[in-house]
């Protein structure tokens, strides 16, 4: 009997009694645990989901309008165009969680680390900064080598680390043979930040626990009519390897939110559950088909356009995404309203399969292509496949491949690749879709340039500066991002100008023009962007903030309030 009592006690502990004890614990399901808590090293979403709670930037974006608002800083940046300098004032009375005041010295220190070590993740937002000076404890001056638009959207939003914690680590790293590696390898076991939550505990392989930062500087501030919290005492991250198990856990109330997009297949079932909410938000992403412009026939704009017409994006969205997504006729997603140019050419929009084939044949013929057997669309709509597509110079188009990610990475894109293969073959384009491991694709595409076409995707930032990264000819280097070899001096000039333009309206004009170039010349064929579907418990917390990419954003966690029992 003596043995049974603790056994029973343990059982009850597990099966329910614990629940009321953690009434305001927000339990979040993640697919993987953080890789590291080192903010210089972390590059994966799971690490940032945790680290993001500890550190803040000088400025941040408004949850609804995305306009930039001061956060650790006080008031707008004062930029002097003549000298390319910018003065920024800091809020006073902000403290790190260990009680040390946050001052301009922390900002100067952080900037110096980014610049001295050329920390990979941050350097592209900082390498145009000459230096940062502290005018006094609460005022800073940034010296820019050249004006850059991402100064406001990137540099000023970078996180700031506490000098008193990191200085000894950084100094020690500088003494070693490879300082950067030492810094990146430094294992953070007890992060000290100033964010809304503090680190409490990490049991590897099982969970991460955060507790509320009682001295959070932004608590009580009003943003968009709401008072900033946090109103939750604890956050518990739990690891679920698959979406299926996470959904079951959500239904059983073991977690309150799944912090990754779920597949459309889950929706119908969840929508019938009164305790579970499902949200749809556009994703700031892009799936695309890219060509190797160094090879024929992809170097020919007519060929690329014909391909663009043949791909039925609406079919892909309707079938593969099950309508949870949108066709893309641009490299900037429509959800990014301010920078999105809606007037780019829309290849094949609204066309039937027959019309697509006719149009593609027409373009190819006008471009000097011929066939051994020309594809035909019969009166009754049947399509007679073409054969032996021949280039203007009289040589046959050689069979080529579309590299698509394998099933473990994204099974849907592998299917998309197969469908595209079928559509292209109808006009006699000899293509095979080749599912290839992700690492192999990146290696072939970015490092070796040994590919014909490939199908990949990007997660994008709000600032459209990425267009410069993807299509500027200076990125045609080993491991560069212009893997297609797209080179257009006019586009380069435009891209350089847009990067240095600080006037938003003027910059928007150049960005719009850049989008037109890309779509017209088609080194990329944008395919679709998906909708981020997310699921959460309606009966436990309220106040989720819907944003581009979903409800798992900093604002949600600042505004979320527990629902008291019987108060639903």
């Amino acid at each position: 009997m003596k043995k049974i009592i603790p056994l029973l006690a343990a059982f009850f502990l597990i099966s329910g009694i614990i629940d009321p004890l953690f009434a305001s614990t927000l339990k979040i399901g993640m697919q993987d645990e953080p890789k590291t808590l080192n903010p210089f090293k972390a590059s994966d979403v799971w690490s940032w989901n945790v680290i993001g709670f500890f550190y803040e930037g000088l400025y941040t974006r408004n949850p609804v309008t995305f306009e930039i608002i001061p956060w650790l800083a006080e008031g707008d940046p004062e930029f002097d165009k003549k000298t390319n300098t910018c003065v920024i004032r800091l809020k006073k009375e902000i403290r790190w969680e260990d009680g040390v005041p946050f001052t301009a010295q922390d900002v100067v220190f952080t900037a110096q680390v980014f610049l001295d070590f050329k920390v990979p993740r941050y350097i592209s937002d900082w390498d145009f900064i000459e230096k940062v000076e502290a005018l006094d404890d609460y005022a800073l001056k940034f010296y820019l080598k050249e004006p850059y638009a991402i100064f406001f959207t990137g540099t000023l939003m970078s996180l700031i680390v506490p000098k008193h914690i990191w200085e000894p680590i950084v100094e020690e790293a500088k003494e070693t043979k490879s300082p950067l590696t030492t810094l990146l390898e430094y294992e953070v076991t007890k992060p000290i930040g100033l964010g809304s939550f503090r680190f409490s505990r990490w049991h590897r392989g099982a969970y991460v626990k955060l507790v509320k930062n009682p001295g959070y500087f932004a608590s009580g501030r009003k943003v968009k009519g709401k008072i900033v919290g946090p109103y939750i005492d604890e956050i518990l991250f739990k690891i679920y390897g698959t979406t299926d198990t996470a959904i079951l856990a959500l239904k059983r109330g073991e977690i309150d939110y799944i912090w990754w997009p779920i597949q459309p297949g889950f929706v119908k079932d969840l929508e019938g559950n009164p305790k579970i909410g499902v949200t749809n938000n556009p994703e700031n992403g892009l799936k695309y088909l890219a060509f190797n412009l160094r090879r024929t026939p992809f170097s020919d704009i007519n060929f690329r356009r014909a391909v663009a017409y043949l791909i039925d994006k609406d079919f892909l969205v309707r079938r593969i995404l099950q309508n949870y997504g949108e066709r893309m006729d641009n490299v900037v997603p429509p959800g990014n309203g301010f920078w999105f140019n809606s007037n780019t050419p829309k290849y094949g929009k609204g066309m039937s399969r027959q019309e697509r084939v006719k149009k593609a044949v027409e373009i190819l013929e006008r471009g000097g292509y011929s066939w051994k057997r020309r594809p035909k669309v019969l009166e009754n709509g049947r399509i007679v496949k073409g054969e032996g597509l021949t280039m203007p110079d009289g040589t046959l188009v050689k069979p080529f491949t579309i590299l698509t990610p394998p099933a473990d990475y994204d099974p849907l894109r592998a299917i998309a690749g197969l469908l595209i293969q079928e559509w292209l073959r109808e006009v006699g384009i000899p293509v095979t879709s080749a599912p290839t491991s992700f690492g192999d694709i990146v290696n072939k595409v970015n490092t070796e340039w040994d590919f014909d076409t490939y199908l990949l995707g990007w997660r994008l930032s709000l600032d459209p500066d990425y267009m410069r990264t993807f299509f500027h000819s200076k990125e045609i280097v080993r491991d560069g991002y212009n893997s297609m070899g797209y080179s257009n001096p006019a586009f380069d000039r435009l891209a350089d100008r847009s990067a240095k333009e600080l006037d938003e309206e003027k910059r928007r004009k150049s960005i719009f023009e850049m989008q037109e170039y890309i779509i017209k010349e088609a080194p990329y064929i944008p395919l679709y962007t998906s909708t981020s579907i997310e699921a959460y418990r309606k009966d436990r917390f309220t106040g989720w903030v819907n944003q581009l990419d979903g409800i798992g954003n900093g604002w949600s966690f600042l505004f979320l309030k527990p629902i008291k029992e019987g108060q639903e």
Partner: protein
Amino acid sequence: MGRFKENFNLFRKNRLGMTGLFILLFFLLLVILGPILPRIDEMYRPMTGVDKEILWSTPPSRAHLLGTDFMGRDILSQLAHGARIAFMVGISAALASVLIGTLVGLVAGYFGRLTDTLLMRLTDILLTLPSLPLIIIIAAALGKQSLWIIVGIIGLIGWPSTARVIRAQTLSLKERPFIEAARVSGASNFRIITRHIAPNILPLSFLYMTFGVTGAILAEAGLSFLGLGDPSVVSWGMMLQWCFTTGHTFRAPYWVLPPGLSISLVTFAFYLIGRALDEIINPRLRER
């Protein structure tokens, strides 16, 4: 021929073996059905055909006896196509590994000495290694998700158990008088192996092939399920992977049950047949 008939009669008495055979016959019918379906309607093409009216996964209906998958493709057509892939993968991978295994076993057993030691060491190493993790690692390192490459890997990994048995059999055959006689009459090694030893060990190889098919089908399905398979081929493992990754596992029993059950049943059937053959070839196991 008489021996075959005698053996077949023995097989017929083996209830488990006959069960296996009937299961296999059922799936062979499914294989035949495969190419017929797309001729009835384009929407029955297993990979690219979709029902124009159906945009998501639906339970069984008259047009789709087993329902449709997430994008409106017919599950029965996929299952039928998957049956062909399963037989193809299973038989060709097993054939490859049995060929290698028989060759290694023959050579090791016949020539003995250093050849034997080296080959058997290699066999033992491969035999003790967990094969699925090994296949996973090799498939991942090759990076190309092609069905034939996967078949090749499975074939290359699966031979050691055959090699061991064949070697033992060869060793015992080598001592038989008729081999001695052939040697004395001046037959070359090649001739002795191909004319005298090989015919006597072929039944054993065949037996190991049935077991090999089981292993190969399971391995391919496992790879596909983990996402390391060939996504351009509609195999049963890939059907499950689609079901799993599109979030239908616990919501669409009509989708998740058929491929999994088919994999399990086909491998079960091959195993049963293998066991029945085993009892015929190894009479010690037979009932007195």
